[in-house]
């Protein structure tokens, strides 16, 4: 097999593995987890989301991501969902994270005042 064929196969496998992890859930949540984000408090925020998933928050795909470069608005949390332009919350705290779970992820309400415009 040529390398290009191998990589195509590997890619298909990788995509399947990602999907198996729930990538196609109706909401995908990405928490910034670079050094800068962690310094701004994203680890705590991540834990809030992880706890929520553990205690039953379903149809949500949770992943970490690197720094997108929004230094003054970190920690950032991105929510990608069906039918919407991806949304990004800035300056997320533990408390805000809990609200995002309750209001946005569970009830579908976008918390506009926390969005990065």
């Amino acid at each position, binding site marked *: *097999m*040529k*390398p*290009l064929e*191998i*990589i195509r196969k*590997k*890619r*298909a496998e*990788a*995509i*399947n*593995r*990602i*999907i198996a992890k*729930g990538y*196609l*859930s*109706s909401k995908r949540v*990405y928490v*910034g987890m*670079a*050094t*800068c984000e*962690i310094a701004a408090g994203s680890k705590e925020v991540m834990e809030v989301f992880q706890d929520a998933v553990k205690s039953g928050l379903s149809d949500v795909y949770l*992943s*970490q*991501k*690197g*720094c*997108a*470069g*929004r*230094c*003054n*608005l970190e920690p*950032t949390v*991105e929510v*990608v*969902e*069906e*039918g*919407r*332009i*991806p*949304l*990004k919350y800035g300056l997320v705290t533990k408390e805000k994270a809990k609200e995002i779970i309750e209001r946005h992820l569970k009830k579908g309400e976008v918390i506009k005042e926390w969005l*990065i*415009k």
Partner: protein
Amino acid sequence: MPKRFNITLCDGPSCMHKNSKEIVAAIEAQLKKHELSDHVGINLSGCLGMCARGPVMIINPGYSIYGDFTEKDIPEIIEQHIKKNKPIARFIIDEDHLYNRFFRVFGDVNFFGKQMRIALRNCGIIDPENIDDYISLRGYEALAKVLTDIAPEKVIGQIKKSGLRGRGGAGFPTGIKWELTAREKSDEKFVICNADEGDPGAFMDRSAIEGDPHTIVEGMAIAGYAIGAQKGIVYIRAEYPLAVKRIKKAIADARKEGFLGQNILGTGFSFDIEVRLGAGAFVCGEETALMLSIEGHRGMPRPRPPFPSVSGLFGRPTLINNVETLANIPVIILDGAQWFSSLGTEKSKGTKVFALAGKIKNTGLVEVPMGTTLRQIIYNIGGGIPGDKQFKAVQTGGPSGGCLSEEYLDTKIDYESLAAAGSIMGSGGMIVIDEDSCMVNIAKFFLEFTQNESCGKCTPCREGTKRMLEILTRITEGKGSQEDIDKLLRLGNMIKKASLCGLGQSAPNPVLSTIKNFRAEYEEHVRDKRCRAGVCRHLLVYEITDKCVGCSACKKACPAEAISGALKQKHLIDVNKCVKCGACFKICKFGAIKKS
């Protein structure tokens, strides 16, 4: 219920104009008809950047990009692709530029819409610790492509054709560097990724490695293939523990998947990478010092020639590329040198990442095409100066760079233009300075840094910067003379031309450029003993105005007993005793103390 497909529709202005709404409706109708609604998710995304081919949508998994269709084509697409899993070739746009992916999944168009992300294409999108994420986004395809059917010299040819230049600061053409190293005959060669990012306020490399480590691994493997190296080394500072962890994991994962190690993808090409930690000396970013550091010696630059391409690490031909440079490589291979060279200016191609900091609203990492002006970055992306303050200067290139005044705001970002303006591209630091900063003090700050970080080897840098710093200190303390400005120029120009390495050669830049662009401020300091920004403490004069109610709070606060006055009477500061600490100014509740 698990979804089987996901459709992302471009919701950019151009696609919307081409009836995206109708298309959504058509898709929903078709899905309903086939009873597939529960199996398919629909997303809207920001502009995908393929406006000419709009409307555009992406069907996942598989990243099939559909363009140039109308709502009439939807039934066929749903029937074939969603139902039968057979993508329809005639709609599929194959120019899936990697850089575009950013907008596909990212909102925040105000900030990102003006950028173009090539090196940072995956940063903030993928899980950096999951190789699947990277592979799913065409990761390691560039490596597979060169290993399948591009000969090493052709790879180098493409890099040369792309016009990519070193992003570490000096801007040496990357392709030529590769060619020079490839040309050497040796049983052992090295590829080094220089991740020893040391400029204060710069964090491009750290973010790139933390956000997308695999692109560095892939870039290095391609470089290794092109120049005939079997071994790669990532030299990264120990102060970046997360980046170290992620690059190490990436290397281990890549090895597991067969992208590193012996006989990569069954081609007989072998290449592996190890991580070496630096202790964080600024000078170790200089390539000859970096290599000595890897060898276990004190990191000190040595004269060139011989260049690393001839005699580098352990005396072997060595290619040293910066993180950002390497991050561009897979994109150039997949999207083509021609396309890459269409971006940017005549001599500076592609994009450049900047760490935007200082007195600016949106501090952050930005990647823009070469040729973008400073004004566009500062005002359009950075959002301008907070608090309605006046812009004073922008410092580019870190401690080795220069400070540019307002008249240079329309300077285009490229290696030559910035140099002509008296600064440098450097590794990409960009610090915005407003009217509250004193330019003499700024120059002093940067010089203090380089003076402390000088390796101490060559005389001009070790001794000369020390003397310059002494003169600057003198000036900020009001003890400078007109002659001192001339001495700064004399020393600065000598150090620039006589120092051994880039650190010394660029150390005087902040001083020389501030004298060039803000000479009036220097003159005020030495002639009028005045600091217009009110930063240089020794030049301040504190006075008590008639607002004073005689509460004597200032008198108690003064450590030098310079304030006199009876209770409930206006107090007085003895300028000869005043040490200008500002304690009175801070404690006065009546705003009765004037600082000038």
